[in-house]
């Protein structure tokens, strides 16, 4: 069972390899898209690397639920509807959605996830020791 530090170290390594960023850029508050330059295919790459690093299975769409953001049921006029926000909260308990909820423009969603969110996501998948 890894410690929180070990989880962070492995995630840092996965992000350095997947995104080609420097180690010191990968800090907990860094956003994956805005600060680390991740594009949609990078999320797939990151998922592959997390699966390998932690020996876990991550169903596609769990870390980044693109299907919600492309579903007309949850998106109107470029914004996520209240039902969509509820679905995102349900699907992404590891992410802090408060800021996004104030003005839920779909295009801004990609810039929401931080390295800290990713750590919480992985911690929900593996048993952590203190």
């Amino acid at each position, binding site marked *: 069972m890894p410690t929180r530090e070990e989880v962070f170290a492995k995630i840092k390594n996965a992000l350095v390899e997947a995104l080609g960023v420097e180690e010191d850029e990968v800090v907990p508050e860094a956003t994956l898209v805005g600060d680390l330059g991740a*594009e949609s*295919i990078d999320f*797939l*790459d990151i998922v*592959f*690397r997390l699966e*390998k690093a932690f020996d876990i299975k991550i169903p596609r769409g769990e870390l980044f639920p693109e299907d919600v953001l492309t579903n007309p049921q949850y998106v109107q006029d470029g914004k996520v509807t209240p039902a969509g926000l509820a679905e995102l909260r349900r699907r992404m308990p590891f992410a802090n959605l408060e800021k996004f909820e104030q003005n839920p423009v779909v295009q801004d969603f990609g810039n929401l996830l931080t390295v800290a969110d990713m750590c919480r996501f992985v911690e929900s998948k593996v048993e952590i020791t203190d």
Partner: protein
Amino acid sequence: MRFEGKKAIVTGGSRGIGRACVVRLVREGAAVAVVYHQNRQAAEQLLAELSDARGSVCAIQADVRDYQRAAEIVDQLLQQWQRIDILVNSAGIIQDGLMGAMTPEQWRDVVETNLFGTYNYCRAVTQPMMMQRGGVIVNLSSTAAEFASRGQVNYAASKGGINGLTRALAKELAARNIRVNAVAPGMIETDMSQVVRGLAGDQIRNAIPLRRIGKPEEVAAVVAFLASDDAAYLTGQVIRVDGGLSLGGY
């Protein structure tokens, strides 16, 4: 020896164009896994023929329509090889018939084998190729994708789908240094084309500017080029190998 140390999968590799691709890759040093469907004897003959070649070859029986099986084969090869450098999707069938008489089975068999089969193996190698930051996929299309022939709606649709898949996937994977191209053969001397050649041999020959039917080896040479570093700056293309058949005009 362009493929020394390279690891490759060739579907439909026991016969026709796929077989010629296997011979070419192995003779140029690659380790190749041949995925064949029904003709075990042909696969064994191929292995025997290549026993003294520079590279190595093994044969795996599978129906390319089986998504799960494709994933298992790639996993198994990764355990052995640790990487997959080249995928050649060559498995393909024809079941010609005029639309008014085409059964759903004829439609489904052709589209599932040719197009879904290509998807299944592309899908299976995407993750390892992304992780290793490199790889090459070559899909076998056909000039039938763009030039109409009566009785081939299923085949034309499947090959047109392959062209679209090739271009979209090339764009998706380019940032990971994975190249995806297709080769579109015209009339080639294979078992698959023998019925058409038999029915309209001279007529077809006269329509081809180079005045002859192509050989599987001549298609394999282009596949090998695309799979090699010689084509390092080439992705998302569909290359016609048809003796000029598609040029049109007089």
